[in-house]
Each structure stands twice: as C-alpha cells, then as structure tokens.
C-alpha cells in the first residue's frame, strides 16, 4: 500500500517486557494463529503462486485451459534480453533517483529553514505541509490535473503572465519527459512534508547549548551544520532516504491516474503500469510474474538496511 508509514518506535524507549509467562507456552501460538493465517492467505499464497509461475509458460493459451509448462528461467531470460524491459527499468530507477533526491533536498532545506524562523510563521508552514501530506492520492492527482489543465488551468495562466510567454493551451502530459516531470513534481510535493517534519523533529533534539558552545569556540553556522547537526541527524536521514527510494519506486497509482488523464501508451509506463499491462492487459502472467519478482527482489535489496534497523529495535 502506498501510505505505509514507518512504525512508531515508542517501544524503543521502553524496554520490552521480560518474557514472564513460561507456564503456558501454547498461548502465544493461539494468539498469532489469526495473523499467520491472514499473512499466508493474502501474501503467502500469492507469493508462492508468483514464484512458481515465473518459471512457467503462462500466456493466453494457458488462460484457455492449456496446461502451463515449466520453462525454467526462460521468462527471466526473455525479460532481461528485452530492451523494452530495460528501458522501463531504467526509467523507473531514474524517476526514483530524481524524485527521491529532490524530495530529500527540499525536505531537509525546509526543516533547517523552519529552525530559523519565528514560531508563528513556522506553525503556518507546518499546517500547509500537513494539508498537502494528508491529501488522498486520487484527490492529489485530480487537483493537479486541474491545475495543469491546458485551457484554463492556473499554472498555464500564471506562466503566461510572464512577458513573452504564452502557455495557454499547452498540454503538459503529451511529451513523455514532461509527463514524468509532472508526476515527479506531484510526488515530491506530496512527500516533502513527511521528510521536513521528520527532520525538523530530529533537529529539535540537537541541544542548543552544544551549538552555542561551538559558536563560542568560533564555529560558524556552516561548520555547526556539518560537524554537529548532520552527524546527529545521519541515522534519520539514511532511513528517510531509503523510504523515499522504496516509495518512489512504487508509483503505480500516480502513473496510472496520470495516464488516465489523457496519455495512454507504453512510452508513459514505469514498472508498475508495465507489469499491469503485461499481466492483466496482455494475459502474459508468467512474464508478469517474473517482472514482479525482479521488482520484489530489488525492493528487498533496497530495504534490507531498514529491515535490519527494525529488527534491532525489536530486540531492544
């Protein structure tokens, strides 16, 4: 899901209750049975199906009753030797990199800026960021589609007020590069608030005394930032960057919605819409399963660091 949120770490502050009740060792199993069933049905079975079918020939013929044939790594080989797949993969990774870096840069910048301004103006800014963050994805995309509307969208109108520029009638979604730029701007707009508020919360934990002492010792603002603030914030920043990368790789909803606003076609595809059209669209379920497996492995590789951090937190 799209709004998955990092787990609260309240527990990190409180040491886990010691395991006291060893008398009845069956109870924890009864308690976890419902969760295990839910995971097995909703995730386990599809996962096994996916792994299994990524090794089978499962196309339209098999949809109509023919037995799917085991073909080993053929699906993977076919995908990996298809320049179309590499193009989509490359576009997705580039999209992720640009969006994640932009989100982090703007988010951190705003957080530092928020430390430097009077309280009342900071609260106004925080509320504005929260409003954008809270918007459901479909509502986000619907509003942006209206903002960039070719004929009487606000953005074209405002741009046209610049002397010598006439943007009225310009369609931002036709050119693929512009299409992805729009998608990236919308996603950045919606994800910066999370980064800013998290970094700001981290900044409030940097003690003013330490900074003052550093100031007395002759460290200027830049040195304080580099030598004191950034090292304290580093763990937060690493996790935020990882989450942004994972989230910016999973942008099926945004891309599918933007495509629906008037730009259908494979040149506007990223991995999510590509897999969807391969599977549900063209009925090539074996290939789609293999492509999904590649995305899954990629995501797990990316998130491994975060998973390790969470496991550590569980131990504490």
């Amino acid at each position: 899901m799209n709004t998955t949120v990092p787990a609260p770490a309240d527990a990190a502050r409180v040491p886990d209750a010691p395991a006291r009740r060893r008398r009845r060792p069956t109870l924890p199993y009864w308690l976890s049975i419902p969760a295990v069933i839910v995971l097995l049905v909703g995730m386990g079975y599809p996962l096994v199906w996916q792994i299994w079918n990524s090794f089978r020939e499962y196309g339209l013929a098999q949809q109509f009753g023919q037995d799917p044939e085991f073909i080993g790594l053929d699906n993977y080989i076919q995908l990996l030797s298809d320049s179309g797949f590499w193009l989509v993969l490359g576009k997705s990774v580039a999209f992720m990199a640009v969006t994640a870096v932009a989100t982090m840069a703007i988010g951190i910048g705003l957080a530092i800026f928020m430390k430097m301004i009077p309280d009342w103006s900071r609260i106004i800014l925080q509320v504005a960021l929260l409003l954008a963050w809270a918007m459901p994805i479909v509502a986000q995309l619907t509003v942006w589609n209206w903002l960039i509307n070719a004929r009487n969208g606000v953005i074209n109108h405002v741009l046209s007020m610049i002397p010598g520029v006439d943007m009225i009638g310009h369609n931002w979604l036709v050119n693929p590069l512009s299409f992805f730029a729009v998608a990236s701007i919308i996603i950045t707009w919606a994800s910066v608030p999370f980064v800013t508020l998290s970094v700001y919360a981290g900044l409030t934990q940097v003690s003013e005394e330490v900074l003052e002492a550093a100031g007395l010792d002759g460290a200027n603002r830049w040195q304080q930032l580099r030598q004191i603030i950034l090292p304290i914030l580093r763990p937060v920043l690493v996790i935020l960057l990882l989450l942004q990368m994972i989230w910016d790789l999973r942008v099926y909803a945004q891309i599918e919605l933007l495509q629906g606003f008037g730009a259908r076609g494979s040149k506007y595809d990223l991995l999510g819409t590509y897999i969807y059209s391969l599977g549900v669209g063209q009925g090539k379920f074996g290939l789609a399963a293999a492509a999904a497996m590649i995305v899954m492995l990629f995501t797990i590789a990316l998130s491994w660091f975060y998973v390790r951090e969470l496991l550590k937190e569980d131990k504490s």
Partner: protein
Amino acid sequence: MISKNPALRTLGAIVAVVLAVAWAFPVYWMINSSFQSPRTIANLTPTFSPFGGTTANYEAVVSSSGFGGALRMSLVVTGIALVVCIIVAFLGALAISRFRFRGRKGLVLAIILVQMLPAEAMFIAQYKMIAGLGLLNTVGGISIIYVAAVVPFTMWMLRGFVAGIPADLEEAAQIDGCSRFGAFMRVTFPLLAPGLVASGVFAFLQVWNEFALASIMLTSSDSQTLPLWLRNFSQSSAFGQIEWGQVMAASTLVAVPVIIFFLIVQGRMTKGMVGGAVKG
C-alpha cells in the same frame, strides 16, 4: 538558531508564509473551485478570490449516479477490513510483545518484510488468486487483500504500544486477586485504548485511500470504492467538457474527512519514527 537580526527574522517569516501559501495552494484551489459556478470556472482568467458561493456542484455530485453506491462500498469494505485487522493485529501484537516463543523471529521478520513490498510486486498474483476464487468485484475479495495489506503495519504499531505497558502492572493486579484475564481486561486493555485508536485510524486511512489494488480488483461499475469513483468521475468526461467545479467538489468530499482524521494522528507518525532513529 533563530536569527537575532530582526530584519532577517521578518524576511524569514515572509518567505515561510509565501512557501506555506504555495504548498497549500492545490488544496485551496480544490476547495475554491468546488464552490464556483460553471461560468466562473470556464472563464479564461481564473478567479483567485475565495468561494464563488454556490453549492450547486456539491448537490450535483451527491445526487450523481454512483456516489451513494461508492460511499456505501467504501464504508463496508473499510469497516470489514478495519474490524478484522484490529482483532487479528491486536492478538498478534500481544503474542510478539508479551512472549518469547519459537517462530517469533520468523513472524516478526515476515511482518516487517511484507510492509516493504510494493503493491506492484504482488498485485498480479493477488489478482489471479482473487479471480480464481471468483471474488473479483466483491466486498469479500478486496477485503481479504486489504486485511493482509494492513495487518503487518498495524501489528507492528500495536506491538510498540503493548510493550510500553509494563507487565508488572498486570501481575500486581493478579496478586491482588484478579484472574489473569481479568487483570488484562482491567489494567492493560484500558491503557491500550489510545494505541488501538491510533492504529485503527492509520489502518482506516490506508484502506479508505487505497487505489492501486482496488483499480485492479474492482472493475465493474457497481463495485467501486470512493477513490475509484472519483477517478471515473474526473475521467468520464475527459473527451467532452469537464465540469471542473463538480470534479473538485467530488475531490473535496473524498479528501476532507481524510485530512481531518490525518491531522488527529500525524503527530505520532513523525515523533515515533524519528525518536527511535535518533536514539538507535
């Protein structure tokens, strides 16, 4: 770090307000347009001043075909998913936070890993499974997928809350004569209530807003959830004249309840995560 120079401070405040206006502008524009008449909207020059003062768009949206059905579908699906998810996640959270048992580590790893997986990595397989069960376009089908999608996160979140309540409290009650179950219900459960509410609101937001899986599994027009209905409403007239006022009214109707719920719980989101990371 607040600057001591008053001129700089004023400048900073002004920049902050400008940024705030820019960031909130899309939300403002959605609400503003939703109250404008078709004639105002069709004007080549946008009307920036607030509130054109007509509620006709809302009336048209609410009475349009599909809105009532989509609202009902969303309420039913979210209701089912939420109740099942909270019960399942709560029991699971008790198990992993109050006990050490064989297989616990595997369960914890599974719920963490599953949270990381994007819909894109599994939706084809989930689609085939639900199609195989004959449950496409049904409340049951999408609920299965939603429960599986939100249980891991909810369980992880509740785990933190349960672990935050010392087991000593319960034992004290037991020494004072409570049964074990009684001690749990009278001591731990009331303390957990805020945690259950917060986790419930998060689960609600995820299911209520979900689009990707719904767009794949609920394709028929009489089984749409609100996000799907909004998508169709804004696209149905893509080739004709779009009634932007109505589309924005529809968008506002979908977004405002979510924004309100979100504002209630967001504090926990940033605090929790960063608190752990800074300490860790």
